[in-house]
């Protein structure tokens, strides 16, 4: 009992620290990547290649003055960044970051470095709690008593709920193929068959587009749209309260990348993993997962600095008139495929 709790806590802390460490790394990749794409240098003065820059920025944010504007609704204003960071830090526990081997620690199986291996609702838990992130944004926008914030929050909530539908229907195809809501079952299915991205290419593309929209990334960054809304819903936030939104955005990005890899890109599997077992399999599978997630994360940066922003009516049209029917078509195809034994 106690050993189990200790192992669960260790896994939770390990992955959470990993996620939080990914934030400065991602910020660095983003800024250097942007500079590379725009043919300039980017931050390169603090530490080798500017690697220490994001950490210095974080320290600066900690000691910035915490300004509470006069017109805000205080309770909700303080609650909003907490909701944002809370939601970002509870969703990752159902993702298997490594192979479910026979490796045990203190007699407890590691079960794929998954924090909640027994949770039957699996991906449903992730989607349900992930969609709560809209509360952080709406509360922030409304409680700030600022026009930019309110507009950003409204746009964001409409965008998030529109793309959530397309996303859940495309995920349904994967659930149908695997016959389970659990993500380790999804990976097990893919290690027997092709990666889901190949037979369910349409669903995969819908998921990718929806993932960009759900994380408010360009080309769907209308809630923030610097050129029209300054910063959108967090314009009245300063110091670590601003950083909480910033952090939750990056953590959500890592989580959704890990989800994308798990659902469509084979999860932790790699060529020849069936020949291995025990610790080598566990370590290599975690490495494989890391490589895949890093690639997806790099794609986020790559797309951000390559595409312009959508107009709002185009955004709604894409979500409701294109992605939703495509996702349903994908679901029908997977249903027929499973029914006739092709998938």
């Amino acid at each position, binding site marked *: 009992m106690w050993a189990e709790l200790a192992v669960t806590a260790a896994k939770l802390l390990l992955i959470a620290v990993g996620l939080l460490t990914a934030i400065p790394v991602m910020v660095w990749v983003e800024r250097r990547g942007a500079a590379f794409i725009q043919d300039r240098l980017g931050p390169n003065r603090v530490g080798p290649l500017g690697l220490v820059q994001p950490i210095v920025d974080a320290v600066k944010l900690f*000691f910035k003055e915490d*300004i509470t504007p006069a017109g805000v609704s205080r309770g909700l204003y303080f609650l909003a960044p907490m909701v944002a960071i809370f939601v*970002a830090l*509870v969703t990752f526990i159902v993702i298997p970051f490594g192979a479910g081997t026979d490796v045990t620690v203190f007699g407890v199986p590691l079960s794929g470095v998954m924090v909640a291996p027994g949770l039957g609702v699996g991906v449903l838990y992730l989607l349900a709690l992930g969609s709560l992130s809209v509360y952080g944004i709406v509360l922030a926008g409304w409680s700030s008593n600022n026009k930019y914030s309110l507009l950003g929050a409204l746009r964001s909530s409409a965008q998030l709920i529109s793309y959530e539908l397309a996303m859940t229907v495309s995920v349904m195809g994967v659930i149908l193929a695997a016959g389970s809501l659990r993500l380790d079952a999804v990976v097990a299915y893919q290690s027997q068959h092709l990666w889901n991205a190949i037979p369910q290419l349409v669903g995969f593309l819908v998921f990718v587009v929806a993932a960009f929209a759900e994380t408010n990334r360009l080309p769907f960054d209308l809630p923030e749209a610097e050129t029209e809304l300054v910063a959108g819903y967090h314009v009245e936030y300063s*110091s670590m309260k601003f950083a909480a939104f910033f952090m939750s955005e990056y953590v959500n990005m890592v989580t959704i990348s890990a989800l994308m890899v798990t659902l469509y890109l084979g999860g932790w599997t790699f060529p020849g993993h069936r020949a291995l077992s025990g610790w080598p399999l566990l370590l290599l599978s975690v490495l494989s997962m890391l490589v895949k997630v890093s690639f997806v994360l790099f794609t986020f940066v790559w797309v951000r600095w390559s595409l312009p922003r959508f107009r709002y009516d185009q955004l709604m049209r894409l979500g409701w008139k294109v992605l939703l029917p495509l996702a349903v078509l994908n679901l029908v195809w997977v249903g027929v495929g499973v029914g006739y034994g092709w998938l």
Partner: protein
Amino acid sequence: MTAQYIPVLMAFAFAGTVAVAIVGLSVLLGRGRLRPPRKTETYESGMPLLDASRKRVSVKYFVVAMVFIVFDIEVAFLYPWAVTVRELVAEGARAVLLDGLIFLVLLGFGYVYLWREGAFDWSREGSRR
């Protein structure tokens, strides 16, 4: 059965602690120095405030929210279907595919209706059409 939710509770406790710690640290470390009224004024690109920020919201946002709730509940019905299809087909009950299809077609009627009503058109020209 309930043991599977222990990790969830642990994650909640952890995330809650981090959330409170971040906002708490911000309040403690960034405690105010001078607070002239200009500083805490609502930000509007440096312009004096014109009027209140909380005004009426375009009705389109409400339409989107309602349509979302309708479809999201329908999608929730699909989860149990999706999980059991493979098992049922293996037992020879291929009719389960037809069940799902009928459900989606019924959903399709509502979708086509909303499309024709212009619920998915954001721009003004679209809704007039």
